[in-house]
């Protein structure tokens, strides 16, 4: 029922104090490269899975950092591990291993 002609979007603010950062810290311990990403978006531009699930390593890292794990998993669900993102990354991040490590550490079911 939109009687005012405009809506108020739900707040997209994230309270980082409420985010469980344990798993992201573990990821950074195994993959120090995770924090080297400068969000240039080269990976998003080349990704063949982007057309299917909107996959982008840049976004996945951002979501995980902010505790929005569900969104990250959704993006990753079509990753084909083809390695194009590794080839184009200007920071030389080993994105394939990063993705595999995320798959090892994070768990869909364990999400509180």
């Amino acid at each position, binding site marked *: 029922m939109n009687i005012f002609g405009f809506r108020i979007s739900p707040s997209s603010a994230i309270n980082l104090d409420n985010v469980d950062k344990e798993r992201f810290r573990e990821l950074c311990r195994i993959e120090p*490269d995770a924090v080297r990403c400068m969000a240039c978006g080269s990976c998003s531009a*080349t990704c*063949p899975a*982007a*057309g*299917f*699930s909107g996959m982008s390593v840049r976004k996945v890292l951002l979501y995980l950092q902010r505790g929005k794990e569900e969104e990250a*998993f959704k993006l*990753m*669900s*079509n*990753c*084909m*591990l*083809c*390695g*194009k993102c*590794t*080839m*184009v*990354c200007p920071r*030389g*991040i*080993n994105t*394939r*291993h990063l993705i*595999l490590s*995320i*798959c*090892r*550490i*994070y*768990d*869909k079911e*364990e999400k509180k």
Partner: protein
Amino acid sequence: MREIYLSGYNNFVLPFMIGMIFVLSWCVIGAARIILQLTGEDRKKFFLSLINPKIMAKNVRDWFCDCLFHVKLWKRNMLLGYMHSSIAFGWFMLIVIGHIEVFLYTPQRVHQIWYPIFFRYFVAVTDSTMKGSFFFFLMDFFLLVILSGIILAIIKRARSRFFGMRRTTNPSITDLIGLYSLWCIFPLRLLAEGFTADISGGSFLTKSLNMVLHSFLSDQMNMLPTWWAYSIALGVFMCILPFSRYMHIPAEILLIPMRNAGIKVTHARKGYAKLQVYSCPSCGVCIDACPMSTVKANTKDTTVYLNRQIKRYNERRIEEISDKCLLCGKCTAVCPVGVQGDMMRIAQRSVRKYKLAPSYANIDENALLERCNKFVNTSNNTVTSDRNQRVMYFAGCMTSLTPSISKSTAAILQKAGIRFEIMDKDGGICCGRPMFMAGRIAQAKEMIEKNTAIIKASGADTLLLSCPICYKIFKEQYQLEGIEVIHHTEFFDRLIESGKITLNGSDTRYVYHDPCELGRGCGIYEQPRNVVRKAGELVEAEKHGKESICCGGSLGSLTLGFDKRKALTENALANLTIASPDTIVTACPLCRSTFNRYSDIPVKDIAEIVDEATRKKKR
């Protein structure tokens, strides 16, 4: 021949007998376990191969050529080949001739298995057995052959470069015990037989040694300690054998028929994989071959160390070694035994546990098909009849990063007048090989299913690929009945043969780099070279063909970072440019972009040079 001792037994045979019984029971139990661990299908295949005369003939030939003559090592280096075959074949002949002697002279002793080994201790020569001097000569001759091999082996420990090996394996403690006991066995045998040669008879070696010994050691009682020493050396060697690299001797006997039966590594540790681990002789040929070992820190990550760590169940190191590998397959190509380092590593990766698994069920293959639908009439669902080939070109992920390759390929197809369609011009599903190499087989299979559905529905009769990574998995894992899977190097060769395109030769010097997945992976070496020869002058790299060096960009490695690959690429470039070519030609988009990063001379894909050479003609 006359027997000296009524019982035909002396206590000194005990160390030998203990070792022999131990090693035999170990091997029988081990072989039974490995056969039981095979999948039912593989086991059936294995037993059926044993009654197939053709495969059995190949088994026998391989047993002789690989286990005894070490033909593959002869081809690598003559000295290395001689060293191994002298010990293996010489020892085999000593055992065979020893048994023949027992059969001929003391047939009543055949059931005593120590008798042929210590024959000379138990018998005395008589006038009537002088005919046996032929066997005496053979025994001494083969003993000499073995001793020469042992001397070479000692030299090799100190200076392996003489044997064409830059680096050798660092032996483990059990390997060293086995090694030293093996070195001891034959000099001790010579000494023992030398002491008794005046009684039991001997030939040029043992007889002369006997003369020398008797000139200062006249007491007959000296001979018993030497026989004891010989037996103890044998016993120690056989007791340590299952725990050392010498386990490869019995393991290889089983590996050869299994390999010839066509059994593949399916489980990471059990069955055929276990047999491969135990068949590894730790010779270290793979260390020099491995493209990673240009960086010294990586030498411990070669296949020989993988096998050692699997034997030790060192999970941390197994993971490290198997994830680092580039999967170029060179260790498999050079291995004298046939240990498949790349398959073993994929198997290790496949048992890893992941909590998240991607799934491709949401991808609509019909939408993807519509983008490339050219050969099927949508109104009545029939394939448009056309006498021309209906070529579906799958460029692949890596080619889309180097668009010049797909552009050139498309241009060549147009010039040849072939009807074609690009399957993934607006993005598509990956072939699955990178996922397969990461060990996530189930996910790779899902992609394979999706792609198979698209290709089959497209009505194409040829699937053209410009990426060897895709080509390998399309050849091996896809079931595309009636559709020919072909790599663009083969396709161009065929177009030139049939006269559909003509290349205008130039005097450019090209060196061709064999991509790992195309050469060692699929066995395509000649077709690309034929094409390059038509376009210009072909020079060869220092190591080419089966031994070509990986560019260092391989997707096979999971952990090797960007910075760590530079040294590998530079090493591969140095190998390629040895004949100072003008241009490097390769047939893989990944090799092309990897080389391009560090090369001083232009790097081109074979499609690009073919395109250029056909263009010149038009002017």
